C-alpha cells in the first residue's frame, strides 16, 4: 500500500487502543509475574526443552499482525515459561527477590524512554544520577569524585582499565597500544572473568592479565566479593603496594559493594577509599533490578570525560542555552545510555539507607543460619567458612558418605550436583547454581540475598537437596 499525501493528514496510530492494551497487559503482569512469581506455592520454573518451547511460543514473525487477545495470551505464555527470579526459592544468581519501589522506578524509566546523554533530553535524570553517585561515593569514603552508570559490571571494569591506561599514557587514546610497552593487569585467580574479557576487547590480550616478567604493570583489579566464594581481597594491603608502585587500584565490588551500607559488615571493604575506582552493582544485593551498575571514581580532574570524549557536534553543541557541563554523554563510551539511576533512587528514597542496611544485614543472617544448619546435617560439606552470603557446599549422598578414600570418589561426587540441578529444574521446586573451581569438583553455591526469603525457605532448601539427591 503506497503512502500517499492524503494518508498523512491524520495520525496513523490510535493511542486509545494502545493504552487499553497496556492496561490489560499490566493486569496479567501483576497476576502472573508479580503475584504468582513470588508465591512460594508456585513453581520457580516451568522447564521445557528448547525445541518444545519454540513450538509453544510460536516464534515466527509474519506479514500480518494479531488481535489483542492473542497478544495477551502471548504475554501469559512469556510469563509462564520464564524463570521466576523473584521467587523465594530462586538462589541461582547474584540477584534475586524484588523491591516494589525499584520496580515502579523501572516501569517509569521504560515509559519515559529517554537517553542519558544530554540535559536537554533527560533533565531530571542527569541531576538524579549525579545525586545517586554522590551518595554511593560517600559510602566509599569520598567527598568528591566522578562516575556513571554502566550497562553492567563488566563494562564498569572495562572503564576502570581504560581510565588507568589513559591516565598513565594519555596518548594511547589517539595513537593506540602500538606506542606503548606491553601493559599488564594484576588480578586474583578468583576475580570475575570480565577482567579477562575486557583485556581482550581493549587490546591488552588475556595473557597480560597476570604477573608477567619484564612488562609494565599499570592496574590492579581486586575483588570485593568474588563470584563463586564471596571472598574479599585485603584492600589496605593491596593499596599499600599500589601506592608504592603507582598503580591504579580498581575494586570490583560489583557483588560485595553493598556491604558498604551496613555498619556491621562494611569492614570487609576496609581501605576501599584508597582505591582509584570502584565498580558496584546495586542490582545484585540491593535488589534494584537489572541493570543497575555503577562505576565510581575518586578523580576530580574530569578524567572520565577526557578519556572518552569524541565531541560529536550533533549532540554536544557548545552554544546551548544551558550549562553544557550538564551534558554527561561524553563521559561514556556509549552514545545512547539507559536511565538506570531512577530504579535505585526511588528505592533509596522509599526505604532510606537504614532500610538498605537492614536488607544487607538480613542476608548475612540467612547465610549464617544456613551454614549452622548444614553443620548439623549429615551429607552437607562446606567448602570453607563463608565471609559473605555465598555458601558453597557439596551434598554427599548416603552412598558416598565415608568413601572419600575411594579412587573414583571425586568423579562420582562431580556427577551429583548436575543431577540434582536437573531434577530441581524439571520439578520447578527451586534453583541453585553449581560449578567446579580449580581442582574442586562440582559444588553448589547458594547466594542468599532476597528480602522475600525466610527461615522456612532455608529449611526447605536443605530438605529439598536431600530429597532430590538421597538416592544418588
Amino acid at each position, binding site marked *: 500500500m503506497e503512502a500517499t499525501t492524503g494518508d498523512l493528514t491524520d495520525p*496513523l496510530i490510535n493511542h486509545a487502543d494502545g493504552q487499553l492494551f497496556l492496561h490489560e497487559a499490566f493486569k496479567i503482569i501483576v497476576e502472573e509475574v508479580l503475584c504468582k512469581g513470588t508465591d512460594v506455592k508456585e513453581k520457580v520454573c516451568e522447564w521445557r526443552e528448547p525445541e518444545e518451547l519454540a513450538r509453544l511460543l510460536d516464534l515466527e514473525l509474519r506479514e500480518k499482525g494479531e488481535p489483542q487477545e492473542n497478544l495477551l495470551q502471548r504475554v501469559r505464555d512469556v510469563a509462564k515459561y*520464564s524463570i521466576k527470579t523473584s521467587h523465594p526459592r530462586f538462589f541461582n544468581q547474584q540477584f534475586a527477590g524484588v523491591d516494589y519501589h525499584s520496580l515502579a522506578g523501572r516501569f517509569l524509566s521504560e515509559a519515559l524512554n529517554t537517553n542519558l546523554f544530554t540535559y536537554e533530553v533527560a533533565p531530571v535524570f542527569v541531576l538524579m544520577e549525579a545525586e545517586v553517585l554522590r551518595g554511593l561515593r560517600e559510602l566509599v569514603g569520598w567527598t568528591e569524585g566522578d562516575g556513571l552508570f554502566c550497562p*553492567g559490571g563488566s563494562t564498569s571494569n572495562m572503564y576502570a582499565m581504560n581510565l588507568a591506561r589513559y591516565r598513565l599514557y594519555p596518548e594511547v587514546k589517539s*595513537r593506540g597500544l*602500538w606506542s606503548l610497552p606491553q601493559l599488564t593487569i594484576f588480578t586474583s585467580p578468583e576475580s570475575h572473568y570480565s577482567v579477562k574479557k575486557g583485556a581482550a576487547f581493549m587490546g591488552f590480550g588475556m595473557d597480560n592479565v597476570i604477573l608477567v616478567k619484564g612488562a609494565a604493570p599499570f592496574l590492579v583489579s581486586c575483588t570485593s566479593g568474588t563470584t563463586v566464594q564471596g571472598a574479599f581481597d585485603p584492600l589496605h594491603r593491596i593499596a599499600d603496594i599500589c601506592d608504592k608502585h603507582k598503580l591504579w587500584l580498581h575494586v570490583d565490588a560489583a557483588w560485595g559493594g553493598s556491604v558498604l551500607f551496613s555498619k556491621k559488615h562494611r569492614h570487609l571493604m576496609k581501605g576501599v577509599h584508597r582505591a582509584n575506582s570502584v565498580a558496584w552493582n546495586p542490582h545484585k544485593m540491593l535488589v534494584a*533490578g537489572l541493570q543497575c551498575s555503577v562505576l565510581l571514581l575518586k578523580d576530580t580532574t574530569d578524567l572520565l570525560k577526557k578519556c572518552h570524549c569524541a565531541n560529536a557536534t550533533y549532540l554536544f553543541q557548545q552554544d546551548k542555552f544551558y550549562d553544557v557541563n550538564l551534558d554527561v554523554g561524553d563521559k561514556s563510551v556509549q*552514545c545512547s545510555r539507559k536511565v538506570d539511576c531512577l530504579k535505585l533512587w526511588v528505592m533509596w528514597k522509599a526505604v532510606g539507607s537504614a532500610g538498605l542496611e537492614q536488607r544487607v544485614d538480613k542476608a548475612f543472617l540467612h547465610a549464617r543460619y544456613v551454614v549452622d544448619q548444614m553443620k548439623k546435617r549429615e551429607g552437607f560439606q562446606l567448602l570453607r567458612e563463608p565471609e559473605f552470603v555465598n555458601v558453597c557446599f557439596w551434598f554427599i549422598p548416603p552412598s558416598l558418605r565415608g568413601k572419600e578414600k575411594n579412587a573414583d570418589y571425586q568423579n562420582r561426587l562431580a556427577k551429583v550436583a*548436575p543431577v540434582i540441578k536437573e531434577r530441581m529444574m524439571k520439578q520447578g521446586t527451586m534453583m541453585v547454581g553449581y560449578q567446579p573451581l580449580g581442582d574442586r569438583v562440582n559444588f553448589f553455591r547458594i547466594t542468599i540475598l532476597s*528480602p522475600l526469603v525466610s527461615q522456612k525457605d532455608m529449611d526447605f532448601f536443605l530438605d529439598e537437596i536431600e530429597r532430590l539427591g538421597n538416592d544418588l
Partner: protein
Amino acid sequence: MDRHMNGQTTVEELMNPEKGSPGAGEDMEAAESFIQQAMEIILQEAVKKATNVKEKVCEWRSPEQLKELLDLELKDTGESESKILQCCRDTIRYSVKTGHPRFFNQLFAGMEPHSMVASFITEAIKTSLYTYEMAPVFTLIEDALLKTMMKLIGWEEGGDGLFNPGGSMSNMYAVNLARYRYCPDFKEIGIYASPRLVILTSQEGHYSLAKAAALLGFGTKNVYVVPSDNRGKMIPSKLEEKIQLAKSEGAVPFFVNATAGTTVLGAFDPIDEIADICEKHNLWLHVDACWGGGALVSKKHRHLLKGIQRVNSVAWNLHKMLMATLQCSAFLVRDKSCLLQRCHCAGASYLFQQDKFYDVSYDTGDKSVQCSRKPDAFKFWLVWKAVGTRELEYRVDRALALARYLAQEIKKREGFRLVIEPEFANVCFWYIPPSLRNLPESLELWKKLHTVAPAVKERMMKSGSMMIGYQKHGDKPNFFRMVVISPQVSRQDLDFVLDEIHSLGKDL
C-alpha cells in the same frame, strides 16, 4: 507500606519476611496496591498525557530550579508511600516527553504500546540473557528475531548475532571480530607487536567508530576518514585511496565501516561499490545501519541498502525508526563458524558448565563481552507479532513520505532553505529570519545565521511547544535537523513545526 523501621530489630524479626525490610514486598497486598497506584500515574501522566498533542513536550527548568523542585536528597530513613508517588509524578512532569508528536530531537521518537508492554514484562520478569536455564523464553525469542532480520538483510545461509546495550557497542563488536579474524592470537597476546591496524569510515560516520578505536586499543589516529560527497555519501574512489595510503605507510587496513543512514544528513553510503573494494583488499566490511536499517522492511526504500547482503556484519537499532523502546540494538554477523563465541568467550565455569542437562549451545552468554545482558529483543518481537511486517513497512513508508512532504513545504516557504534533498527521514534546513533575508551570501551572513537556531531552540524548549535538534556541520552554520519517525505524527504537526519556527524566530 507506610512503614519505617525504627530502632533495633531482633534476629527473630529479621528472619521473618513479614516484618522484613520495608518496601521489599513482604506484604503482597500492600505491594500490589503501591504498584497499581504507580502504574496508574505512569499510564495517565507518562503515556496518555505525554503523547497528547495538546500538552507540552517539555517543562523546562534550569538545573538549579529543578534540583529544588525534585528533592533529590537520599536520606537515612525512608519516605511515605504518598511522597514516593509524588516523586514519580514530579519525575514525569519535568522529564521530556519523547513520545510526544512534536518531539523530533533525536533519532528515536514516538510511543509503541506493544514495545512498552514488552518492556514492562522484561522489567517484571527481571532476568539475564546469559544462559538458557536463566532465560529460556528470551533466548529463543532473540534467536528468532535475529534470524528474521538476517532474512531481510539477505543472508540466505543465516549467521549469528546478539542484542547489545546500544549501537556504539555493536560497532565495537564488529571491529573486535574483524581484528580477531585477522589474527585470533590478539585475543591472548594483545596488539602491541602487531603492525599498525587501520579502520576506515566516512566523514559522516558515527563517532562510535572513534570511541571504538580508543577503547579497543587502536587509537583514534588509526581511524582514517574517507571524504563524502555533497550528498553525504562515502566516495568509493577516496576509500581506495585511503586504503592505498595506509598500505604505503606500512599499516594494515583491516576494517571498513559503511553507514546506512548517517546521523545528521541521513545519507546512505554506496554499499555495493564499497563491497567491491573490500573484497578486492580482503577487508572486513561492516554496515552501521543503526539508523537506516529500518528501510529494509520497506520494499520501496530498501534499495538504499543495496548490496547489504554482501557485508560481514551489520548494526541495526530497532529503537530508532521502528520504535522499540530504548535499547534495542542488534548486531548481526554473516558467520556460521561461531566466530562471535570464539572471539569473546572466557568459559566461566560458574555459568557455562559443560555438563548441563540441556544442550549448552543455547547458552549465549559467551558470545558477549558482557556478563548480565538484558532481553532487549523481546521488546521488538512483540511489536512485530502485534502489527506484522506489512504494518511496519507502512509506518516506514509513511515516515519517509512525511519527510518528503516537509521538504516540499520548506521549498515553498520564504525564509526556509534545505541543506540537501533528503533521501531518508532527516530533513535538514536553515530558518533565515526576515532581518537576514536580504543579506548577500557571505561569511557575515553565516555568522549571523549560526546564532538563529540556538535562539529558536531555547525559545521552543522554554515554551515546551516542540523539540528539534540543530548542529553545525563541516563549514555550514547551525541548521535544524527534523527527524520524522512516529506514525502518530501527521502533516499538521509538520506544518506546525514550520509555523512555530517562524513564530519563534521572526524577530531575530
